């Protein structure tokens, strides 16, 4: 029997070719939308970066000069004369890392218990955790300030670290609970127990390595939240050498950062971005995996 081909299909004019054309238009639209979104997001960052290499006069020039004539590093050298930027960056790293560590430790323990055991009051605990997410953050200012003051933790890193860890805990617990339930089924622990592990070695040798993406997601989430915070750091710390980088940059604005020292201001902003960016690049593979792991089994 001879095989025949529909001439319309052979010439690429059949129903499939129409779909292919529609598909190409869809692809181009998506690409165009993505490029516009990227420009929208990246333009301020590019502006910050190029301005940090320009003089104040060049920055204010109209029409704007998008590419600097010369890469000047003066702003990066001089910024330390205006504010103790390295001290502020170190302070930020310290409080952010400590808060991330604390939130991960507490969040892991709480999420593990909530995902593995059934006990009276468990639903209430979960609902309470969820409800805390629904309260507008600004409403916490007075009660939390009073609490930190009463505990004698005003103007201490401990007070700030406890606050940051507390803010991140509800999200961390919910994320890790879902992670433990989807990625670490109880059978894996049981298999480890049968294989010869104790409860502690099961946690250390099996649960912890499997949960690394989830832990990384929680760690970076807390770290970035703490790193980017301005409100609490300016409320709870008042000693100048204890300030975090965000508060430091805020002070710089008041001292001519937006006018005379605009190039130094931009340099400070670039420096404030770099540690968070390095951390994000370092753990982004785990972060993406950790955030999506609970969605599909």
């Amino acid at each position, binding site marked *: 029997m001879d095989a025949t081909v529909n001439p319309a299909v052979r010439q690429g004019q059949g129903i499939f070719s129409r779909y292919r054309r529609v598909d190409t238009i869809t692809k181009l639209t998506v690409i165009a939308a993505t490029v516009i979104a990227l420009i929208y997001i990246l333009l301020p960052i590019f502006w910050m970066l190029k301005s940090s290499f320009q003089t104040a006069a060049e920055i204010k020039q109209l029409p704007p000069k998008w590419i600097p004539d010369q890469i000047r590093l003066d702003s990066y050298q001089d910024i330390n004369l205006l504010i103790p930027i390295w001290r502020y960056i170190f302070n930020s790293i310290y409080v952010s890392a400590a808060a991330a560590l604390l939130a991960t430790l507490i969040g892991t323990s709480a999420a593990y218990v909530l995902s593995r055991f059934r006990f009276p009051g468990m639903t209430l605990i979960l609902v309470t955790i969820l409800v805390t997410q629904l309260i507008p953050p600004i409403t916490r200012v007075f009660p939390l300030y009073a609490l930190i003051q009463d505990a004698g933790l005003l103007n201490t890193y401990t007070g700030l670290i406890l606050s940051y860890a507390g803010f991140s805990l509800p999200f961390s617990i919910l994320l890790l609970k879902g992670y433990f339930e989807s*990625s670490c*089924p109880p*059978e*894996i622990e*049981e*298999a*480890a*127990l*049968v*294989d*010869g*592990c*104790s409860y502690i*070695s099961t946690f250390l040798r*099996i649960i912890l*390595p*499997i949960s690394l993406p989830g832990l990384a997601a929680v760690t970076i989430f807390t770290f970035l939240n703490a790193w980017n915070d301005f409100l609490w750091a300016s409320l709870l710390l008042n000693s100048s050498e204890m300030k975090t980088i965000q508060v430091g940059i805020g002070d710089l604005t008041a001292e001519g950062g937006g006018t005379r020292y605009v190039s130094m201001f931009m340099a400070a902003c670039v420096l404030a971005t770099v540690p968070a960016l390095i951390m994000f690049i370092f753990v982004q593979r785990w972060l993406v995996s950790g955030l999506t792991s609970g969605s599909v089994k």
Partner: protein
Amino acid sequence: MSTISVRNVTKKYGAVTAIPDLSLEVTKGEFIVLVGPSGCGKSTLLRMLAGLESITEGEVAIDGEVVNNMMPRQRNIAMVFQSYALYPHMTVAGNMGFSLKLDGADKAEVAERVNEVAKILALDSLLDRKPAQLSGGQRQRVAMGRSIVRDPSVFLFDEPLSNLDAKLRVQMRAEIKSLHNRLGTTIVYVTHDQIEAMTMADRIVVMNAGTIEQVGAPLDLYDQPANRFVAEFLGSPSMNLIDGTISDSGTVVLGSGLELPLGASLRAGAEVTLGIRPEYISLSDTGGMKVRCMVSVIEPTGPATILVVEMGDEKVTIEVTGRVAHRVGDFIDIWMAKEHCHLFDTSSGIRLDQ
């Protein structure tokens, strides 16, 4: 090889009793299958043997030693889980050698033993892969390999084949059976698939609602079920069960008024259930009880044909070898082999013709 004794074991979850007073003896090297519908307590019993579930009352002994308060690792047992439960961050070799590593075996010893078992299970080319890179059948073999490597005294299998497709299940069934023949280790195997139970077990334990309905060799249970539950549970298609009453003349009168010459020794008026397996009903005169009925369903399976016929108000399943020429709606005569008919007490379900 070990013996297992389960003595008057009870398992309660709060006010709910999952297993009330169960006793069972497993002999050395035996392949015993716990079978029953979902929720009958078979997996709970297996987990109590493994030490993954506490025992409310009673004792479990392995080789005469009571293990109630021992951790799983102290019991020298290995378990294969339904979901494989492989460690996703370890390679196949890592998974298989994990227990030996925990026991403090040196690297060379672990590698040697892992390679040895990998060869048996045809996993030697996959040792460097992670579980995510394996097919379902390969994962199942790794789970088995992980258990074999330890050379345990008892293997516990918790529905290990239920995640596999039909073809692979048949293949793995044969592999597990040949593995048992080779190693001779005592195996306790949980399944809800009665075909698995029939084909693999030395003895089957049929469980229902936390209790043992019957224990015995597969064909003994098939031919001589202790009660209606066992009769119905074992066999596919399952046994035909038709309610009736014993007449004054000792015959069984079915609901539709049909009278069958059975049950002569039983009290007149007793309510009974007639049971006969589909393969013991014939479409040709084999000397059994002849009944006229109408064909309502025909299911050709290739080597056999399954017919559902209407016998009065009752539907009866028949399994005949080969193909049939009948069509739906045809009236046909069937012959029921009298010697293969069972009578069960309708209220208690106990078999009366023992």
